[in-house]
Every structure is written in structure tokens, then in C-alpha cells.
């Protein structure tokens, strides 16, 4: 079963960190990802550019309308996502708890991926 780990964090808090601190976190991040690749659990995922690069498309009166910025204005922004293969929710939660940006504030939403039954 696949789970999507949506990593949300506070962009302003992240930006406020020293370069050294950021590099340390990114190093830890690479280790987590390498571990998931080795265990064969990683199915995909990527870091996203900051929300300043986001464009949101909505439909108004049958016409697509673009707005500058993310879908939801919240304190936490979606910074990246990982698709992992796990037997159950507890395994997915265990991986989510190791996401190194968690200590700098933020959250990881864990959602099972609905697979098309063949």
C-alpha cells in the first residue's frame, strides 16, 4: 500500500535559519531518503519550490482564473512530498516522524493513496 507524505513547514521559519543549520537539515533529509531508497520503500516524491512560485487555477463562470500563490493561505506551506510503500499506517507514521524539517515547525500529513483495483 502506498502512502503520500505531504511535508508542510513554515517558510518564514525556514528562511530565518542560518545556512549552516539549513545544510545540516538537508543532509539529514538526504539520509532519510537514501534509507527509503535502500529499503525499497520510496516510490517517488520531490521537494517543491517555495509557495512564491505557486499559481492556483480556479474556475469562475466557466473560465479558468489564475491567482498568484498557493491553494490555501495557511501558516504551514507544502514544501515537498514523498510517496512510500508501507504495510500499514504505523509504518508510514514512523517514516513521517523522521522527516528532518519537523523540528523547525510544520507538519507531515500522511494519506493512503487510493489505488485502482485491477
Amino acid at each position, binding site marked *: 500500500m502506498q502512502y503520500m507524505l505531504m511535508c508542510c513547514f513554515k517558510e518564514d521559519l525556514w528562511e530565518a535559519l542560518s545556512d549552516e543549520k539549513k545544510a545540516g537539515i538537508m543532509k539529514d533529509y538526504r539520509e532519510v531518503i537514501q534509507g527509503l531508497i535502500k529499503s525499497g520503500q520510496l516510490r517517488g516524491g520531490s521537494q517543491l519550490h517555495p509557495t512564491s512560485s505557486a499559481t492556483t487555477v480556479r474556475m469562475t463562470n466557466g473560465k479558468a482564473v489564475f491567482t498568484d500563490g498557493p491553494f490555501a493561505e495557511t501558516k504551514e506551506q507544502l514544501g515537498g512530498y514523498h510517496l512510500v510503500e508501507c504495510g500499514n*499506517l*504505523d509504518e508510514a*507514521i514512523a517514516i513521517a516522524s523522521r522527516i528532518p524539517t519537523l523540528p523547525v515547525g510544520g507538519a507531515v500529513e500522511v494519506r*493512503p493513496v487510493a489505488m485502482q483495483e485491477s
Partner: protein
Amino acid sequence: MTHDGMEQIRSKVDAIYRSDSRRVLATLIRLLGDFESAEEALHEAFTAAVEQWSRDGIPANPVAWLISAGRFKAIDGMRRRARFDASVAEMASHYDVETPASEEPEDESIDDDRLRLIFTCCHPALRAEAQMALTLREVCGLTTEEIGRAFLISTPTVAQRIVRAKAKIRDARIPYQVPSPSDLPERLDSVLRVVYLLFNEGYSASSGMAVTRHDLSGEAIRLGRLVIELLPDPEAIGLLALMLLQESRRAARTSPSGDLILLEHQDRSLWNRGHIAEGLALVRRALSSRRIGPYGLQAAIAAVHAEAPTPAATDWSQIVGLYDVLMRADPSPVVELNRAVAVAMRDGPGAGVNVIDSILARGELVEYHLAHSARAELCRRLGRMTEARASYERALALARQEPERRFIERRLNELSS
């Protein structure tokens, strides 16, 4: 079979339903991998039991019989549906159908299944209110209506919480298992929290339907017993002790008119000696493990109160000492407040007021009525009447439960006279 014989079997089956249906359900969930099918199978198994036991007599191990019957009913049902939907046929073949109905599952695995059920219902990925509703429904076997009455919420709301929780267990694949030893402390925490919340709902709520709520405390104690029977963890033992010691005072806590009576004014002859004896023995057991935690410490404090023949004879130094340890194990402003009251009893009201004032000065508990009423009471004892009145008025403005409001109003009237 005569009509009377049939009635006899029916009442036997009813009794087995009351005592054992949850054990059967717990195992069927493991075997069928799904709450819905397991519940359906459970009811079919009990229906089949009335019929077959009237004919053949009650089997030696009714629980094992019911599990086998439930499992076969479920597989039968899948096969029947499979005729209409070929894709389900594969699912039916998935379950091991070779086991004959006479084979008896080991009782040990049935007990493990009950523990699995408790941990699944109290999984931390479910909301607290969903954990509670699900535990009462699946582990305790309360009906949706009974749960709604107990929490003063509508039956559809309870039903929706339970349906949602079950859907999450299925869709997100919350595992049906006892956590591994490394995860156990954290996961046991949520089980114990649900049990204690349940207990408090039945113990401290003085509004609503008193009888149903009293039942909730009873259910919590029953669950507490079940948990330590299955998993004798010191904190679980401590929690059961704490609940029994608190429950022992139930009859003495309120006057016939429903007014609150503080610990120091309670008629101690009304305390339930059976509960106290059992609670004290459990506290000793928890303490001897040397892995005592917040529940065990609170139970130990309750035990010191329970052992005192009169309020004056209470060993306040020991209580302050236990609060000191509790402050290290599980610090919170509420624990600090309770400790302040114990300090006042040991060192005089002035010492207690100082501690409470320092908590309030930090901006903590300023909205908590008990902090102000405790301060008011200590000021009254010191003869600082203006301060006492101001604190009682603040407490009255914050108190929400009717008996508590009446209690504070009475105190204010006493100050004026």
C-alpha cells in the same frame, strides 16, 4: 425441545452474549480483517447458536464454537456474493477454509485479540472522541444510543463518529495489533488516557443523567481490569488503583441535594472499603515495580488520603513529597496547584497562597476556577477577607458546573455573614 427448554437455551445464549461477545468479536476482526464483516458474522453466529444448541446442547467451549461459526458464516456470505461477483471469489479463497468447525482456537490468542482490539480502537491517529466512542462500542459493547446518552450527544453523531473511525481504520490500514515493545509505552498512553477520560466523564460530571454516567466509571474500571489482566504494566495498574480509590469516595462526594462535599468534610464511613483495599494493594504492586509513572503517583497520593482516618491525621508531608515526584514525572500547572494545597496543609495557608500566586503571576491557570477558589479558601483561613471574596468572585465567574457554582455561592454568603 420443549418451550421451557428453548427459553432456557435462549437465556444461556443471552448470558454468553453479555459476557463473551466482545472476545468473539475481537477474534473475528482478526480473522476477517474488517470490523463490519466481523460484526455481521458475530450476530449470525449467535443466531445460529440458539438454533443449534437447542438441538445439540451447549458445546464444551461456547466461545470457540461461536468464533468458528462466525467465520464460516462470513465465508459463506462471501461465496454467496461471489456468485454475483466473480472478483470476490478470490477474497473468499483468501481465508483458510480448511479448518474444521470443531477446531478450538487457543484461549491465549483470544486474549491477545481483545488487547489488539483495545489498541486499535485507541490508536493515536484517531481523534480522542472517536477513540472513546469506538472503545465503548467495540470493546465494551455499549449501543450507539447508550453512548449518546452518556455524552449528551445525539445518536446520529455517535454513529457518524464510529462509522468514520472504522472507515479510517480500513482505508488508512491502522494495524490490528498490539504495538511492538519499543512503541508500547507511547501507545499504551493513549489507551490509558481513553480509559481515564471515560472514568472522569462518569465521575466528575454532575450534570446530565447521573445513572448512565455512573455506568461509564464502571465501564472504565472494567476496562482497566481487562488491560492489566492482558498487559500488567505498572502504569496500567496505577491507573486502575487511582480509579478505584477515587470511586471509593463516590457516595461521600455529594450531599443528598446534589451539593459537592470537599474531601476534608466527607463522611469517611461512606467510603467504599472494598474499593480502598483493592486500590491500596494495587498501589503497592505498582510501587514495587520501581517503574512508577504519573498514574501510579496520583494513585499513591489518593492512597495516603484513603489511609487517613480523619482529615487532620493525613500525612501531608508524604503527599507533598509525592507531588514533588509527580512534578518531575509529569509537570503541569494543575499538579502544581494541587501541590500548593498540600503545602498549605503542611506549612500553613500563607505558604500555599504564595505558591498559587506565583503560578497565577506566570499567567497560568488564570482562567481555571479551582485555582481561584483554592486561593480564596486559603485567604479566608488567613483572615484576608477582601482578597478571599475577590478570588471567590473570580472563581464564580469562571465555574461552569451547577453544583460547583452553588458551592462557591455558599462560600461567598458565608463570608458576608
